[in-house]
């Protein structure tokens, strides 16, 4: 994956596959502590202990069936390369939390990439799911909550192209504000 926004898009596909209807993406950048945390919380079907173990073990996942598990091991490898790790907490029937932590200024840290494209792709293709995207830096915080958007647009579908275009610019501008223009 070229950037973090693509890793994230892939990670959230797991929550969608787990039939979540509320997915929260929380990103926190801390320049002073030189730390970056990315958390995805979902209320999907969850995993038991055995599945969790299989899911993060790159050898298990890549060496048995070809299809099982590229997404998590890839993201985990990225985190570990940057002095961090990926952790999974999950309760069957309740949901899953995936947390990725890594060194913000690590030379190998992939750039964020187009976060607005990732969020918009998710909303566009999963109109029945609610997404909350919050992104904090040392300069401020940006939040997009599709439940709030729905209150305003009423019966207009959230995946309407005009609404999607609005959300895309809204995120871009919001991120620029909390980053002083650089990602």
């Amino acid at each position, binding site marked *: 994956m070229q950037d973090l926004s693509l890793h994230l898009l892939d990670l959230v596909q797991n929550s969608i596959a787990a039939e979540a209807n509320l997915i929260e993406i929380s990103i926190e950048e801390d320049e002073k502590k030189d730390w970056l945390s990315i958390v995805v919380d979902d209320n999907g079907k969850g995993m038991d202990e055995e599945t969790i173990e299989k899911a993060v073990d790159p050898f298990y996942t890549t060496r048995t069936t070809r299809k099982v598990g590229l997404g998590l091991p890839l993201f985990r490898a990225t985190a570990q390369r940057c002095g961090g790790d990926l952790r999974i907490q999950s309760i069957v029937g309740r949901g899953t939390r995936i947390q990725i932590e890594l060194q913000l200024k690590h030379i190998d840290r992939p750039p964020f990439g187009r976060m607005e494209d990732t969020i918009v792709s998710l909303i566009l293709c999963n109109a029945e799911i609610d997404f909350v995207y919050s992104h904090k830096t040392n300069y401020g915080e940006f939040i997009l909550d599709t439940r709030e958007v729905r209150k305003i647009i009423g019966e207009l579908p959230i995946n309407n192209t005009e609404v999607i275009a*609005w959300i895309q610019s809204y995120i871009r501008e919001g991120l620029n504000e909390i980053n002083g223009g650089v990602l």
Partner: protein
Amino acid sequence: MKTLKELEEIRQRTLEEVNLRKDRKGTRVVVGMATCGISAGARPVLLAFVEEVKKRNLQHVTVTQTGCIGVCRLEPIVEVYMPGQEKVTYVNMTPEKVQRVVAEHLVNGQIVKEFTIGAVEKKD
């Protein structure tokens, strides 16, 4: 700056059109979004479809995603479901190819044969 008021305006402006199109039979564009698809460039392909559909105001087209379509090495893969037509599978898609698929297939109903899985598999 994007404001919430603008969103409210979009609602008022767009709602009538949405109601008009409800009863029409639509075309579905489905983009594969498994890990392999995403790393091969599915996201820009998806967004290129959305952009073109918006630009041309193709009210009958919906763009959506699916997981694994099954042929990693040919990702990004796009399936087009048009009423009265068999499913068409386009492979190795790029935003540039999307322009042609929209103009020729979605607008004029002419399949872009050279981008389809059948044509590409024959070449290999």
